[in-house]
């Protein structure tokens, strides 16, 4: 299944936050959205899992506009891992992963053997098979993310959409979560803050800046010192990772880029 976002615009209270975004994720590809804070990454993702209705444009999954499907039909092909990661209610791991079956259940229908097998399988796949009865609030950040990924997998989706899945995770848990993501071999749209993580896990990157896509391509094509200076406003060298061969960005943490800082480009039209 592929995703095609065409001429997408999003507005909050009349103010455009995303305009004219066009991007494609091919079948089985991991497409990364990167960009500074407020560049519109989350807004784009929200239109895909139907939380935010586009002001204009279309979101196509295998040629079908998700906004012309019913919410339930859409939830059967797109599963989301939004940034909501806590609950004031005492939920168990099993409660949360079973939520993934919601799009498949009629009102009043109980859980059948299929649901239980799917939930158990999803928990197994993220290595949380033994945690079913545990309280979600007692889990570590990394464990929570794996449980939420299991919920998305229990939805049996064609497409996974993840909003900053590695936020607040330590390095090992980031590595584990991204490795899990690659193992799934599903069409995936993921926003990431960590450019080095994005460079090694994504097949293609789309750079968002002020609500527009300013670059698309493989990580090697996209992540250049010039782009990092212009979009992120930082000085950086792009090296080759000695272990993996992926692009490795070495930031200059002492001073921002001299040219095209975000403040000066903000004045430009």
């Amino acid at each position, binding site marked *: 299944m592929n995703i095609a976002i065409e001429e997408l615009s999003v507005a909050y209270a009349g103010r455009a936050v995303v305009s004219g975004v066009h991007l494609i994720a091919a079948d089985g590809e991991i497409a990364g959205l990167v960009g500074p804070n407020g560049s519109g990454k989350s807004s784009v993702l929200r239109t895909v899992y139907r939380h935010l209705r586009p002001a204009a444009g279309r979101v196509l999954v295998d040629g079908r506009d998700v906004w012309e499907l019913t919410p339930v039909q859409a939830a059967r092909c797109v*599963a989301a891992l*939004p940034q909501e990661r806590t*609950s004031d209610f005492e*939920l168990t791991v099993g409660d949360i992963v079973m939520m993934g079956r919601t799009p498949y259940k009629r009102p009043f229908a109980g859980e059948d053997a299929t649901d239980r097998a799917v939930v158990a399988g999803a928990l197994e796949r993220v290595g949380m098979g*033994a945690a079913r009865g*545990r*309280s979600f609030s007692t889990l570590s950040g990394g464990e929570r993310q794996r449980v939420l990924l299991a919920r998305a997998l229990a939805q049996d989706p064609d497409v996974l959409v993840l909003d900053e899945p590695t936020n607040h995770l330590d390095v090992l848990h980031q590595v584990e979560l991204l490795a899990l993501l690659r193992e799934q071999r599903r069409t995936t749209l993921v926003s990431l803050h960590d450019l080095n993580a994005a460079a090694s896990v994504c097949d293609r990157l789309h750079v968002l800046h002020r609500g527009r896509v300013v670059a698309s391509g493989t990580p090697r094509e996209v992540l250049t010192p010039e782009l990092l200076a212009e979009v992120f406003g930082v000085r950086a060298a792009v090296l080759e990772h000695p272990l993996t061969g992926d692009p490795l960005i070495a930031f200059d943490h002492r001073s921002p880029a001299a040219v095209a800082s975000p403040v000066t480009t903000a004045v430009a039209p």
Partner: protein
Amino acid sequence: MPIVEADAQTTPARTGPDHTPGRAPGVRHVRAGVLAAVLGVALLAALTFAVAWGSTDVPPREVWSVVLRRLSGEAPRPGTSDLIVWQLRLPRALLAAVVGAGLGLVGTAVQALVRNPLADPYLLGISSGASLGAVGALVLGLGTGGALGLGTSGAAFVGALATFALVWLIARRGGGFSPLRLVLAGVGLGQFLTGFTSYLVLQAGDEQQTQGVLFWLMGSLGGAGWETLAVPAAAVPVALLLLMARARALNTMMMGDETAAGLGVSPARLRRELFVVTSVLTGVLVAVSGAIAFVGLMVPHACRLLVGADHRRLLPVSALFGAVLLVVVDIVCRTALDTQELPVGVVTSLIGAPALLYLLDRRLGRNA
């Protein structure tokens, strides 16, 4: 005991229990079916004693013989037993059960609606509106004296719906329908209406009127009769059905609107539906029993500790638990003092607060 994580480089697979730290055991819940059966038996027992005990005790066996005789359509045996059991105490006991069940449901729904396990029906201002309606009717003489006549109930229901409409309009302004806007609109309007009610209470002419008003504000089942029972007895099962049909959708809302949307639920639409169901049901309940505090907050919370947060189990268990609780409370209210009846709300607060603290303490102790 230190937990050794699997070597991430050689075995990125996260299989086997060694990857799951073994500190906290699973949350232990009671099986919902077992609990429901226990509560069902408890409800029958509580109803029996509610009818048996009072200023004149009727033996439980006699209670059932009167009830079965009536139910089988035979002519009632003449005597005081039939009068006490069938005309006076049974409608009241049943009303306590229905109102308790309704409050349990409303509390569960409102907590999901505003996504806060410590919310209660009063948060949306609807009971305040109902109280103002009822008290206004009493003071202006539309109700008949201190008795909770049809005039008062009607005014309470109108007050509830009017408040509901106002809260709705305020919360909708700006297009959003967020939990925070709902709570702010509800609390704000509720306080405003409560101020009016207090003013009316001060203005109440004679002592009997004031007495009636206070009884209303603290909740009472004293107005029960077969005719008061009909509307709530129909409304509570309908509300249970409507909410059960949305139980899975309610579950998805516990983590947030984006999660719900990603799972094929429209949170705005669900919230509108919940708001209508809870408002109408609250209006019906307050109209027949006044503002009974704490049940709507306490019951779902306690039930969540017992059976977990899944609404497919939580809703029916909360209804049953609320029913048992209010029947028992009303027994206490009628029999604790020789000289007068206690308002239901006084006893629900006295029982509810310590019970909640105990349950919270137990829960925290287990998870520590």
